[in-house]
C-alpha cells in the first residue's frame, strides 16, 4: 500500500496473509470460517496447497491465528500473465474460530452497485512504494472508485479494463495498492458500518503512478462463481 497508514487491530479482521515457507506472498479475505477469496495470479508459480499457509492478525511476525491450506480453486478461465478472471478461492484445512480480531467480510449480491467516486479502502502487507520495502504491520489506504470509462482512456489503461474489473485510486497517483497486496480486499462501508468486499487486488502499472490507478477483480461479477465453488 502506497501513501497509506498502519491499520489498527480489529479494523480489517477478514484480512489474511497467504504465505509460503513463512514468507508473505499475497493477501486474501476471509469469507467464511473455512474459505478465503483471493487472486488467481497468486498461484502462478505454486498451486500445491500443502506449500501454503494462511495467517490472520495485523502483524506478519507474531500472527494471531494460522491455518494450513487444504485446497486452492483457481477460476477455470484464468491464464497466467492475463488480467481477466483473476480470482481464486482457498479452503482452509481447519475452520477459524471467529473473534473480534478475526472474522469474515460480507459478500455483496450480484446486483450490488458501486458508483464512481465512492470511498473505498484497500488493505495489505504489500510494498510501501514500487520496488520498496515490505511492512510487518497491515496498512490501509482510502481510494475512490473510478468509472471504467475514465480508466479505459488512452492515457490511462487504453481499453484494458473489462466488465469483470473495478478501477480504484486517483489519476493524480500516490494512494494505491502495490506488489504484495495482490489478492487482498477492496471494501466499501454500507449502512451501520458494515463492510462489503467489492474487489480483489489484481493489477496495475507501477504503484501510485499518475494516471495508473489500481485494478481489482469485481466481486459482484463473479458472485455466482464464488457460490458455485464455496457455496457462500
Amino acid at each position, binding site marked *: 500500500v502506497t501513501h497509506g497508514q498502519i491499520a489498527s487491530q480489529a479494523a480489517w479482521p477478514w484480512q489474511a496473509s497467504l504465505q509460503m515457507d513463512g514468507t508473505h506472498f499475497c493477501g486474501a479475505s476471509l469469507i467464511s470460517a473455512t474459505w478465503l477469496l483471493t487472486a488467481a495470479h497468486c498461484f502462478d508459480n505454486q498451486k500445491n496447497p500443502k506449500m501454503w499457509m494462511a495467517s490472520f492478525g495485523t502483524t506478519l511476525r507474531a500472527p494471531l491465528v494460522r491455518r494450513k491450506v487444504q485446497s486452492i480453486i483457481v477460476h477455470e478461465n484464468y491464464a497466467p500473465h492475463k488480467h481477466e478472471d483473476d480470482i481464486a478461492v482457498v479452503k482452509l484445512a481447519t475452520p477459524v474460530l471467529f473473534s473480534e480480531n478475526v472474522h469474515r467480510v460480507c459478500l455483496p449480491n450480484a446486483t450490488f452497485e458501486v458508483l464512481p467516486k465512492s470511498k473505498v479502502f484497500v488493505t495489505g502487507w504489500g510494498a510501501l512504494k514500487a520496488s520498496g520495502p515490505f511492512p510487518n504491520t497491515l496498512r490501509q489506504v482510502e481510494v475512490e472508485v473510478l468509472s471504467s470509462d475514465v480508466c479505459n482512456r488512452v492515457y490511462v489503461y487504453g481499453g484494458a479494463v473489462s466488465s469483470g474489473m473495478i478501477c480504484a485510486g486517483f489519476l493524480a497517483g500516490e494512494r494505491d495498492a502495490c506488489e504484495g497486496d495482490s489478492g487482498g480486499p477492496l*471494501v466499501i462501508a454500507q449502512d451501520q458500518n458494515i463492510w462489503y468486499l467489492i474487489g480483489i487486488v489484481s493489477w496495475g502499472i507501477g504503484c501510485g503512478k499518475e494516471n495508473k490507478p489500481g485494478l481489482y477483480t469485481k466481486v459482484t461479477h463473479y458472485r455466482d462463481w464464488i457460490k458455485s465453488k464455496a457455496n457462500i
Partner: protein
Amino acid sequence: LEKPGTLQRRTHSLKPWMIFLITTAIVLALAIIVGLLVYFLEYEQTIHYYQASLQMPSIDYNPDFSVEHSKIKTDLKQKINNEIDKIFQRSSLHHHYIQSHVVNFRPNNHGLKANILLRFKFTSNNANTIKRQANEIVHNNLKSSESFLKIDTSLPYLTEVNGTQAEHVLNSCCGLGMEYPPMER
C-alpha cells in the same frame, strides 16, 4: 596414647531472633497466599455467557429474518436486546449483566423463535447463584402478558456457553470492522 575422640553434636539450636524471623516470613507468605485467594475468588470478575431460547408468538416468520443485516432482522434484534436490557437493568443482577445478543431467528409452531446469548461479569464462586437468579428473572419477567417475548418452554433453563465458543458466535456476523467515517480528533 591418643586421646579418645569425643562426639560433638553436629546440630546446634537456632537463636531466638532467627526463629522469630522464620516465623514472621512463614506468616507473611501465608497471609499473601490467603490474600491472593480471597482477591481472585471475591473480586476477580470474569465474563460468563448463557444461551437462552425465546418465543415470539405475535411475530410471523419472514424469510428476511435469515438475510444478514436486513432491516427487519436488525430492527427486531434491537427490540429484543432492548427488552432484555430493560429486564436485567431493573433487576438485582444489574451490576453483573452486560448485554444480550440475538444469535439467530427460526420459524416454529408458535411464531418466531430467537436464540440469544446473555453476557454477565461476576466472580466464579457466584456462578450457580447468578445463573439461578438470572433464570428466575427471565422467567418472572417473560411470564407477564406485557412482553412480546415469551420463554421457550421446551428449553426452560439458561445454558452456560464456553467463552471461546460464545466469542465465535458473537463475531459470526460479517463485515464488522473499522468505524467509518473515522472520528475526527
